[in-house]
């Protein structure tokens, strides 16, 4: 019988990560798209770093940072009684960093592909940046918003290295599906590993299929909408 808790944990982790990334990603991408700053290139490079860095490298540094033995981890421990290593909140924070580019990049491309006239027209109509963002820009980039949300969700489901480094494999707490597969293979319970793997495969395919269906819908000529 399959133990559903790793899959459930993966979905929960992916959902929290996606939701927080939406809140963080919209203002960051908006700022990157519309503001000039000398160090903007550096910010973009840092955001995209998780795409090229081995997850174990990212996990290793996060482990050092979160560890109660280190400065930041000790600060959290002593002042807020928060421990991030081998805990679910720690996994969420690590996943946010790990999936950041998968949210930011589609949003950034979305903001940049909007006609500049929309932004300027809204300003000449007396609207603040805030109103412009929520009532003019975002309603016209449903495609990028859905792409960013779905990709960061899917990417979080698929993470392994980072979780291994800072979450370990505590059943019900940090043992997500990808880690569970690894454990089952080590045991070796190939049948069980195969069940998890098939579920993840089906899930990933469905998610990507949805992304492409959505993109085809929003990329249709405007007159069709």
């Amino acid at each position, binding site marked *: 019988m399959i133990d559903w808790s790793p899959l459930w944990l993966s979905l929960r982790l992916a959902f929290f990560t996606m939701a927080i990334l939406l809140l963080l990603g919209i203002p960051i991408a908006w700022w990157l798209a519309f503001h000039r700053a000398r160090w903007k290139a550096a910010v973009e490079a840092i955001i995209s770093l998780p795409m090229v860095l081995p997850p174990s490298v990212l996990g290793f540094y996060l482990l050092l940072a979160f560890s109660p033995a280190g400065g930041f981890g000790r600060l959290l421990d002593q002042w807020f009684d928060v421990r991030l290593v081998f805990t679910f909140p720690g996994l969420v924070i690590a996943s946010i960093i790990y999936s950041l580019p998968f949210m930011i990049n589609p949003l950034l491309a979305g903001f940049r592909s909007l006609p500049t006239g929309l932004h300027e027209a809204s300003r*000449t109509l007396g609207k603040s940046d805030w109103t412009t963002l929520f009532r003019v820009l975002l309603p016209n980039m449903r495609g990028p918003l859905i792409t960013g949300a779905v990709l960061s969700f899917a990417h979080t489901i698929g993470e392994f290295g980072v979780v291994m480094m800072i979450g370990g494999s505590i059943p019900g707490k940090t043992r997500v599906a990808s880690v569970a597969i690894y454990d089952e293979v080590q045991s070796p319970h190939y049948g069980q590993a195969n069940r998890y793997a098939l579920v993840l495969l089906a899930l990933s395919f469905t998610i990507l299929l949805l992304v492409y269906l959505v993109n085809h819908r929003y990329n249709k000529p405007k007159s069709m909408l």
Partner: protein
Amino acid sequence: MIEFRATKMLHTSSGHQLLDIGFQLKQGSILALYGPSGAGKTTILRILAGLTDTTTGYIKMSGPGNGNHKGGESGNSNPSGPGSQSSETSPGNESSQTGGIWLDTSRHLNLPTRHRPIGFVFQDFALFPHLTVRQQLEFALPKKADRSIVTELLTMMELEELQHRKPALLSGGQQQRVALARAIARRPRLLLLDEPLSALDDEMRYRLQDFILKAHRFYQLTTILVSHYLPEIFRLADEVIVLENGRISKQDTAANIFLEEKISSKFRATGEIIDIKPADIVYIISILSANNIVKVIATGEEAAALHIGQKVVVASKAFNPIILPLG
């Protein structure tokens, strides 16, 4: 009265060029900016709107009215005052707090676009794809503004039947009217039109000039438009500024500028149009000049800008008049 002075380096396809412009404009008038592309016409509109920075600049809008008055009434009402603290104030409130000064680089003063009492009609209209015609106008209303202006504008621009359509389902002329109505909905004092009619066919262009004139008068606007198109300038503008290489080369009425300059003719006469008739692909315009009827062939584009009863100049420089003795 609007006072405008600005300098700015323009980077055009033909190289760098200094824009160095200063002019004054009476409240309630229509000014046309005319000149070759790259002369800085659109840049002037954008500087007025606060969408483009300047090296040095000064813009002041003085005079009565702060954009809240109802169309047809005197522009002297001065309601609301300091009561409204919202960041999205009615146009005019903010600028009156700075003494009507929108830009003064010597004092590091630059009123943000959203606080300037302007309406801007962009060349590509910049309508919001996700909003219906009515929603575009409602979006433009300041908070707590009287919403009746939306219906009033929809009626004036003959958009009632289209009010629930999105821009993608509108023709160019319809989109232009929506853009114009949207720009006026917040009751601006200054209306800026960036070649608004360039994408339209002649008949539509003529009708839209009517809409612009109607709105300009009814809402007591001061209007600045960029145009390449002489009949349009003649019809709409009280005053014309001709820009060349980033500077003002002429500032006068349309008649004084263009009739002097364009037609240094060998033959000219003034008259009144008494008939416009299509003939195949052209139009025959009959003009009564003194006691003679002169027939002149015009293209559809030219004919669309003319109407019966209009006073015109008939001129030519392509031929030499000859003199024949009579009797």
